[in-house]
Every structure is written in structure tokens, then in C-alpha cells.
């Protein structure tokens, strides 16, 4: 798998919801090589602050135009600086990195996408891939945020025949409660999915994994950790295998999120 280290031109950088922005970047070689669920390391600027590159998932991948985008949430110094960048400026990108989502197993009819907050980002590209490979899949999105103002526009999902279920922690939009509450409720009302994809904060992921195990559903989760190199070198991004398997004996069996992940399979031996 090729990895490119480039200076790429920003095509657009605009706000999508409260504290949530989208940056479109032109790089035909990266766009062509990227796969949904993979990520990139962005050099916010050539200065000492912030020092390290910041990891972001590919949100959309448009091969014909040579443009990909990231959807990012403003949480700290680096992402705050990113909102100041303008179209036409260039930005350092190291990509594509990590293992992305894979197709659901043959015979899968129903797929759920579970997105917590900015975890919605990679699902734009994923949905496109799923639709391209199998137009007959029945896909539902469960998408939650702290408050209604932090939810991004979901028309892309609706327009692609994907049923959208929203929820917010404060009840300002959709169901009042956490995404895992929303999923639990759906479970009691409709038929369970054959496969799921989940992306969101780590506490949500651990609940999702528990839910998947209880119901015997296979799927994939995309994880977030701190990263320094993004290329399997620093060993800083490790996560315990026990997080996925629950097996105490695997407590010190560490996996690199940037290399063995960021997407990990649940419910099968990997």
C-alpha cells in the first residue's frame, strides 16, 4: 500500500454545524489510494505548535475529481487553527494510513451505521462504498450528538435510501438519550441488523461492542487514540486487545490503532 507525503491545496474549508467544519483537499494520488475508514495525518502548520500531525478520517473520497474531504470537530489548539485556513493555501498530508472498513460478509441484508458525534465523518465514504458494491443492502444510520446544533446535515444519507435515526444527549433533536439507548430501543422494535459499523468516542465503542456481543452481531469499529507517527513506528497509539474481545488474558496484547486499525472487527477471530 503506497503512502504519500504531500503538500496539498485546500479547495474549501467551511463550517457545517456548531464547532464542526469540513475541509476539502485536492490530491489525486491520495484520493485514488484512499479507502473508507482509513485516515490521514495532517500537518496543521510548519511550526512547533502544534508539534505533531493530527489524525483525521477520510470523510468523502471523490476519485474522479481528485478531491477528498475531512469533517472535523474543533476541540483544541490544532483544530482551532485549522478553521483559519483558507481555500488556495496548502497543507501537509501524510496518507492514506491504516486499515479501513471492509465489505460486510456475503448474504448480509441489513446494515446499521452507528455514529457518535464527529464519528459520522467516515460514514459518508463508507455509505458510498456500500451502495456501489451492493445496492440492495438495507442501511440505517443511528447518529447522536451532545446537542442538536452539533448534528451535521444528513440529507446525503436520506438521499441514498439510508434510514436516519437521530438522537441528542439533551433532547434538542431526535430521541433524547445516548446513541446506545437509541440502538437498544430500535432492537426491541425492529429486526436486528446482520452487520454494523461504529465510529465514535471510546466509551460509546465499548458499549457498542458489549451490545454486539450480547446480540451476536458482527461488525467493525473505528477507534481513536493519541497518535504521534500514524505509521506504526512510535508505538504510542496502542490499545489492549481485551477492549475488543473482553478476554482478560489479552490485557497486555497491544494493537497499534494506526496499523492494525483504526478499524477493528468484532465478533470474529482476527
Amino acid at each position, binding site marked *: 500500500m*503506497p503512502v504519500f507525503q504531500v503538500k496539498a491545496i485546500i479547495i474549501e474549508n467551511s463550517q457545517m454545524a456548531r464547532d464542526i467544519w469540513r475541509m476539502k483537499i485536492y490530491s489525486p494520488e491520495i484520493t485514488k489510494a484512499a479507502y473508507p475508514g482509513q485516515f490521514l495525518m495532517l500537518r496543521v502548520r510548519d511550526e512547533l505548535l502544534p*508539534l505533531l500531525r493530527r489524525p483525521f478520517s477520510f470523510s468523502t473520497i471523490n476519485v474522479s475529481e481528485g478531491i477528498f474531504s475531512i469533517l472535523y470537530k474543533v476541540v483544541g489548539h490544532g483544530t482551532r487553527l485549522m478553521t483559519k485556513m483558507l481555500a488556495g493555501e496548502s497543507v501537509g498530508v501524510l496518507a492514506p494510513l491504516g486499515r479501513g472498513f471492509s465489505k460486510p460478509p456475503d448474504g448480509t441484508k441489513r446494515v446499521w451505521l452507528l455514529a457518535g458525534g464527529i464519528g459520522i465523518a467516515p460514514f459518508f465514504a463508507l455509505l458510498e462504498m456500500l451502495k456501489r458494491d451492493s445496492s440492495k443492502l438495507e442501511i440505517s444510520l443511528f447518529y447522536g450528538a451532545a446537542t442538536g446544533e452539533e448534528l451535521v446535515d444528513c440529507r446525503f444519507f436520506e438521499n441514498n435510501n439510508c434510514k436516519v435515526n437521530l438522537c441528542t444527549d439533551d433532547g434538542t433533536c431526535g430521541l433524547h438519550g445516548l446513541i446506545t439507548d437509541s440502538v437498544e430501543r430500535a432492537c426491541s422494535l425492529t429486526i436486528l441488523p446482520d452487520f454494523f459499523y461504529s465510529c465514535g468516542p471510546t466509551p460509546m465503542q465499548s458499549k457498542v461492542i458489549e451490545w454486539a456481543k450480547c446480540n451476536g452481531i458482527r461488525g467493525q469499529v473505528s477507534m481513536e487514540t493519541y497518535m504521534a507517527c500514524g505509521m506504526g513506528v512510535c508505538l504510542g497509539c496502542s490499545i489492549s486487545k481485551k477492549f475488543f474481545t473482553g478476554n482478560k488474558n489479552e490485557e*497486555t*496484547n497491544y494493537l497499534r490503532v494506526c496499523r492494525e486499525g483504526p478499524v477493528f472487527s468484532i465478533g470474529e477471530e482476527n
Partner: protein
Amino acid sequence: MINLEVTLGPLKLPNPVMVASGTFGYGLEYSSLLDISKLGGIVVKGLSLKPRPGNPPPRIVETCAGLINSIGLENVGVEDFINKKLPLLLKRDVPVIVNILGNTVEEYAEVGNILSDAEGISALEINISCPNVKSGGIIFGTDPKQAYNVVSAVRKNTSLPLITKLTPNVTDIGMMAKVVVEAGTDIISAINTVSAMAVDINTRKPKLANVFGGLSGPAIKPIALKKVWDVVNTVDVPVIGIGGISSYEDALEFLLIGAQAIQVGTANFINPGTSIEIIEGIRSFLERNNIDDINKFIGSLELDTAK
């Protein structure tokens, strides 16, 4: 033609720019992004006798112009390295230096012994910044007697050029340098990371699971420069400067004060091509200043002695 070749006692390097242990994996991870055969040398991740899992996460945190890590010396173990990693790396025609670690004097000696029998290795670098489990976890490199024991034990087991990597977390690094030279090291490298910690006032928790770790990156460069200065001025063996080097100017500062080579660490994470750019940068600097040999620049710091 500008000469960049440097000779560090028994170790000859094509140029003075190496990559530091723990920041370049086992040598090949970055090879798709740069021509690693241009490097002065590759120091691979520290190896122990058996594979080690490392510390629980979170293991890294960024601070002002620096990175604190508590990786916990995770590595594949010396056997796996020799069987699976080394043969591929040796095809690249670049000096390979193996960083070694242990929790007992015997472990260091054994790892040194095993590597001496492997072919193609250019030198060993002893990381003495490890806790000694047999003496209450004291860091070997902070206790002169234990540092002596480790280095002399490895020395007995190998005829490879021996580098000892010093920790800055001591009161008198010059004294530690003398001790490891007495124990038989050929070369000294300095510095390893600076002991550090970070906490979160909102969660009231440490930012690293291990509570503390080692600081690296541009933040430590002035500290490193002084420590290297202290070593250069107390012992006669060649010294390799490490700490916060991210540009050719940084590299030249260490060479100016008398280091004969340097290693690039944290900067690799930000730009894997840093070392190659440093080599090019040094070459053009020498050209601009009409210096035909890097060795004429090394140690050429001018001190105002009139005062």
C-alpha cells in the same frame, strides 16, 4: 566534493546523521517515503532478551513543542529481530546500530552476546535508562556503579563498536560519561528523554497511564546541547548528540560544540524525511561557507577566552 564521512573510534559512518532508537521502528517502516540508504545510520528500536508488551495506554501526550512518552520499551525481542527484521534491513546498505536494553546486568550481557553473533550489525548502543529490577527499580544510568556494571558486562561479550546512551536525568552527566568510558565504551550518545509528566486539571488525572514519561522534541534541545557539551568536555571518546534536532541548523549546533555525529528522533514522526533534509542542508551549508570537510567544522566553537 564535500566530505561528510565521520569516524567515531571504531565506527565509520558515511555521514553524521542517524535516526534515533524508538523513532524509526526496526528500520523499514518509513522506507517507502525516503531512501534510507542515504542515512548515516539507523538505530533500531531498543531490544530485550524476550519480547515485551510495553505500558498500558495512554502512552503519549503532546506538550509545548515536545512529546512525553511512556511506551515502556515494547519490542519484538532480540531473536525475532535477528530472524525477521535484520535480513531485510541489511539489504539496504546502511549502517545498522542496535539499541539494547534489559532489567538485569545479565540480560544486557546476554542480548549483547546474541547480537555479536549476528552478522552485519555495525554497532551496539546500550540504553542504560532502564530500571534494574534486582535493586528496587533504580535506573541503571543514574547510578555510577550500576552503569559501570552494565557497560563492562556487555563489553566482555562483544567486539562490536560499543555506544553507551546516557540519560540526562542525573546531576553530573560528565561523571557518568567517565564511568562508562572506564567500563569500556567506545562512543557515548546523549541524551535520552528528559523525565517529565503532564496532568489534566478537569479530570484530575495524569495524562499518561504510567503517570510520568520521557520528554523529547524541540523543547529539550537546549538541555541536550548543554549535556552534550558537558560530556564532550570531560571525556575523550567520540560523542553522538541527540535531543530535539529537527533541522540542519539544529544538527550543526551539536556538531559545532564537538559532537561527531547526531541522531534525529521525534522529528521523524512529523516529517519522516527530516534526516535526509538535514544531510542535504549540512552539505549546502558547508558549500556556502567554503568548508570541504565536515570534520573541519566539528568542535570549532569559538569561546571568548579574553574574559
